[in-house]
């Protein structure tokens, strides 16, 4: 492999200290993410996957190891190259959808006319054309999450961090959003780190899956998912798909 990694993590550890003691949130996380990859971080609650995402976002520091984002071919500016999507859509209730989508551009003082044009294009890409002037409460949960994805893309960041973005959606909407995400990822060419506790979701979406376990929190596996793109729901019935999910179930002690 000649491409240098976009994200490089080596022996990253993080301990939360409080008055009553300390809690090891991550120990020894080591993996690389290539530019344009969609990496799924999967594991049970308390395995440190969200903490790792916050470290990547620059919201938390880390105690040990090395965290490097960006490469000579893919430079990274932490002040404007991060797009975030959380489990809750976090749309501002008082803003119309288009005004919500342009928020990052507004905070970064980007030229607004161009940002609004781009926001409209992104809304079309995520399937929200016609909803520009609606208020968040007028949209379903799935639609709100589409808007949150468009918002994460509006300032054209190089890295998209997603923390269980479809965790609050019903099963059918969730499958649909998985397909949409793969399409958006292909169209935008972004590097995505996707945190989930859904094992089949991780295999279905990821070009690479990083498995983390809880108690003690540690990184248990890191493998490439060699399944063809574009992926369709049919894939979930294929034998190779089952091999990958079983591998994860075994690591999590569920088999």
């Amino acid at each position, binding site marked *: 492999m000649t491409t240098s990694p976009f994200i490089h993590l080596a022996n990253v550890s993080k301990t939360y200290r409080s008055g009553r003691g300390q809690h090891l949130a991550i120990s020894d996380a080591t993996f690389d993410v290539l530019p344009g990859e969609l990496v799924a971080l999967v594991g049970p609650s308390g395995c440190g996957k969200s903490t790792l995402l916050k470290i990547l976002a620059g919201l938390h520091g880390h105690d040990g190891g090395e965290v490097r984002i960006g490469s000579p071919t893919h430079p990274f500016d932490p002040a404007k190259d*991060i797009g975030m999507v959380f489990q*809750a859509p976090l749309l*501002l209730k008082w803003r119309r959808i288009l005004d919500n989508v342009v928020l990052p551009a507004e905070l970064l003082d980007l030229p607004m006319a161009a940002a609004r044009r781009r926001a409209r294009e992104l809304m079309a890409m995520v399937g929200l054309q016609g909803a520009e002037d609606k208020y968040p409460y007028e949209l379903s949960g799935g639609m709100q999450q589409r808007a949150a994805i468009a918002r994460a893309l509006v300032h054209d960041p190089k890295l998209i961090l997603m923390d269980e973005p479809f965790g609050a959606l019903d099963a059918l909407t969730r499958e649909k959003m998985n397909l949409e995400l793969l399409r958006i990822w292909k169209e935008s060419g972004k590097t995505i780190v996707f945190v989930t506790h859904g094992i089949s979701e991780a295999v279905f979406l990821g070009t690479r899956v990083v498995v983390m376990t809880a108690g003690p929190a540690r990184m248990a596996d890191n493998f490439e998912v060699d399944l063809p793109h574009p992926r369709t729901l049919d894939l979930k019935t294929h034998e190779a798909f089952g091999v990958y999910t079983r591998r994860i179930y075994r690591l999590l002690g569920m088999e």
Partner: protein
Amino acid sequence: MSAPVSPTHEAIADASVAARVRGAVGYYLPSVVVMLALLVLWQLGVTMLGVKEYILPTPLAALRTLADPNYRWTANFLATLYAVLGAFALSAVLGVLLAIVIVWNDLLMRTVMPVLVLFNTLPKIALAPLFVVWLGYGIWPNIVIGTTIAFFPMVVNTAVGLASAEPEMLDLVKTLRASRWKVLRKIRFPNAVPYIFVGLKLNATMSVIGALVGEFVASERGLGSLIITGGVTMQTASIFASLVLISTLGLVLYGLVVAVERIVAPWAHRG
């Protein structure tokens, strides 16, 4: 804080105006009937039992007093109105500004808030004579006394609203390196708007109380001073007439706050 939603909210969403009016009449009719029945009962009770007017006037006698020019209703009503509006406006501005100061940093929170809480435990009515000493007779002591009573709920509610922005939303704007000022302007302040309106509704009621307290203590004008005079001279009907005007004033001010909220923050009670 949960948003108050009227029970008919869903039902009237797409209904025609006629259906809405019918719905509203059906909803409010029972309470109106009860209120009217109580007034009729009062009127008949006082008349039939032969209660003296200086003890308890009938509702009609109280209303008739409003036509008596000796009480200079317009001038007195306006004096109270100005004091109420002054206290309301001053409380609103002072309350929101103090809340921003408190939420701005931890040290200010730890130093300013205890002072405010301590001040709020004082019975403000006991301060009234001081303000008269400092500000003289006239409208200003009434405005200031009203403000001391009404501003505290403004501060608390606004501060809660400013502090209650979603933590993950704040994470999101942090990754974009947004300045505190921008976060205040674009996230925290709009987020606090429904809370500010909760404060304004309390403020509307308490400004009326505050202005009257001021007029009780030191004023030869205003509905408060009319009530005091009415008590001393046994003109009980004028006291009830004053009460009608005061509660009307309070109701209209409260209604205005509700109406402005519907225009400014229609999103506040949805979703």
